[in-house]
């Protein structure tokens, strides 16, 4: 498995989740654990560029794949989060940012969401679209307005 561009290898039991492999075995603590059951999005990472909740997959499934965590992200959306105060405690933030990066790519590829009215043409990234597409990432601090503003700013 490649993590943030570096080849890594570890002897892991088959039951170890991708999230635990990163946090506990590889010392990559950027991805956070909020629920360990796919409900909060704090553990979101990018696998070959697509967003994935890393608590729901087993590390062995990702053998040979390219995993990017917040530590490996360098994207304008990070600065936009700071400018728009799209964060408070910061615990959901790595997941929100990875999710935003993945979501922008999905949108750029023309993928629709539940908020898309006409699925035949490429949807415009309205705030409603951003909210729908980001709804798997909970923020208990309630920084939602700033997060949406940051993503909208970067999406232009």
């Amino acid at each position, binding site marked *: 498995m490649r993590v943030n561009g570096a080849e890594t290898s570890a002897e892991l*039991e088959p039951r170890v989740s991708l999230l635990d492999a990163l946090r506990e075995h590889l010392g990559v603590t950027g991805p*956070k654990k909020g*629920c360990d059951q796919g*409900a909060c999005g704090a553990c979101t990472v990018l696998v070959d560029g697509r967003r994935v909740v890393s608590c729901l997959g087993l590390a062995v499934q990702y053998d040979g794949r390219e995993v990017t965590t*917040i530590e490996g992200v360098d994207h304008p959306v990070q600065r936009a989060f700071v400018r728009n105060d799209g964060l408070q*405690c*910061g615990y959901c933030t790595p997941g929100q940012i990875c999710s935003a990066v993945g979501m922008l790519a999905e949108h750029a590829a023309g993928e629709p969401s539940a908020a898309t009215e006409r699925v035949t043409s490429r949807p415009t990234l309205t705030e409603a679209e951003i909210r729908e597409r980001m709804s798997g990432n909970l923020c208990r601090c309630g920084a939602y*307005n700033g*997060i949406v503003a940051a993503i909208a700013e970067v999406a232009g």
Partner: protein
Amino acid sequence: MTQAPPAPVTEAPVLGAPVDRIDGTAKTTGQARYAAEFDHPGLVHAALVCATVPRARLVGIDTADALAHPGVLTVLTHENAPTMRKSPSPGLPDISTMATATSVTYLNTDEVHWNGQPVAVVVATTSDAAKEAAALVRPSYEPLPATVDFQAALPDARPQKRNPFSPAGGAKGDAEAALATAPVSVDLTFTTPMHHHNAIEPHATTAVWHGDRLTVHECTQTIDWTRRRLAHVFGVPVADVRVLAEFVGGGFGGKGYLWPGTVLAVLAARVTERPVRLALSREEVYRTVGGRTPSTQRVALGSTVDGKLTALVHTSITQLGRIGGWPEQVTSQSRHLYDAEHVLLRQRQVELDALSTTTMRAPGESIGTYALESAVDELAHRLGMDPIELRMRNEPDRNPLGGTRFSHRRLREAYALGAERFGWAERSPEPGSMRDGRWLVGWGVASAYHPAQMFPANVTVRLFADGTVLLRSAFHETGMGQPTTQAQIVAHELGVPFEAVRVEHGDTALPTGPPAGGSMQTASLAASVRAACADLRRSVHGLARRSGSVVGRQRPADLVARDGGLFGPDGGETYAAILSRAGQSRVDAKVGSDTGLGRVTGQLRFAARMVRDGMRWVRASTGAQFCEVRVDPDTGEVRVTRWVGAFDIGTVVNAKTATSQLRGGIVMGIGLALSEETLVDPRTGRIMNPNLSGYHVPVHADVPELDVAFVGDPDPTMPLGVLGAGEVGITGVGGAVANAVFHATGRRVYDLPITLDKLL
């Protein structure tokens, strides 16, 4: 001889500026580290075994399979755990006892007091092994009779004890008699369910012993209290315990106390002589960390035909555990919001065989304003009067109970500002009269109210010869942006650039800071930071005088702090120049003392000030919440589509982070109004939805743009004029949503949350 120090420049633009967070980069690049993310050589992992019965005696506990699981080091139970010292009940004179969450000495007893109490802790080389082995531990119980059903226990409610921050009730005149004879009246009963904080970071502890010295990385809002409680429980000197919490992934009151996980992680480290990490699962948080009490409330209002309140009755029943809990001040806001001739406020409580209830964002006012503000709205409806107009007719000049002065009160201004931004004048009063296509549209308002208080805060401010400044204080950053705000205050007070200020916080090795609770951190710190900066300016002037600087030849009163130094009519110099001429590498100014005596004095002063201030003024953050909902007439689905919150939080130190705090409160309030509910099995006292898939917190799609506006008027009695912003945002939200739903549908919902079944 003391004389007034040189003054700060009052116009410094840094105070109030929407400065970006000082830790924004750390938090957006994954560099910020939280309690479960500190590695230590030989680190092992712990997991809890939680009771599945509400009250019982443990008659045995079979750990054989767990011990046989590969990787398991030990299983601690009541049969083999070393003895710990019992925590004293919360109370003065030692304020840190407030952090005692329950009276149970975990694993030192065979009694089970709540459904979820830890009965064993497993330690293993990996977290997976610890969790798996925990599932293999088999406790046997002899069940004991238990009272776990809040509704069924209501008839046994007893008068509530007061909590340290709020009286338990109050009365004026004869409210029941006035109610009976009032020309117009409402008499309504409301219920609110149990809530859980659900900070996205679950509670976690990393504990390391070096002999008898203990270091703990802990997610806590009270690092000093945590240190003192741990020192007590494990019988070691306070000075030998260090608690670190630079970043905390949200608290909301849920990380203010010493819950079992922390104690058991420290115990496990002690027994295994290894560093131990205990990162609770989401379910373990629900089982072992208290939530907000459920409530049942009665609000009755009597008025004249032109809307002058003659009677206000607000009573509540809430829940405590037999083992402890927070007496929730449900009627708090009702002491201050309306000028009724006769008032009766009474709080009662039931004690259940359940985990202690605890503080959660605006304990009392968050759910109290829902009931009170719904009743006021209903009265306005019956009077045929605009709900804002009704509130303005009953806006008091002095506190309705006791006639104490308000330190300042800008609720009228908040309503005017909010109404203007929301476009309230366009509202058509009749319920169900506004539509947008198939959606029923409703507009509602409610008042927000949260008291302002202060804790003691020790700080050191250190000026270096290069003109940079370091602020040191063991305060907390759980998301409010405290290091940023305090750096702004230092920059303002010393007239240095914001970038020249560094902040160290979240470590008990620093001067003792205030707890992050009760919306008190900013003001508490501001008082001490200002005092320390004034001291520092005085010391610098002294240095300047002795070393022959032009600054030293002028009177302090003629000098101002700006441009990184002190300047007067005859010129000035930068701090760097003054320090270098005086041959000083740094100057320190300290406020508060961390010696035993200093601590006692500080606490006594704090208690005395609290009593004295309470007699002189009523102080609070207030606000007006405006909500628009759309309700689907076929499905009953409620969407919040517009929000305006106009607040008086005194001086706004950082417009960006203060807005975020208030928005965060509103978001949690939307959850309280529409979706949040902890479901407790009335037969077993077991929480049935201990996860984020069954307990619904608001998501992106539930939250529209929230327009937050400030009246922005400094409170004349608070340091820098700062009130608090952490909690007032959630107050009034439940009421505003419920009132908007009533306006949309003609249905008033008396039982939170307003789920769609209640509208069909």
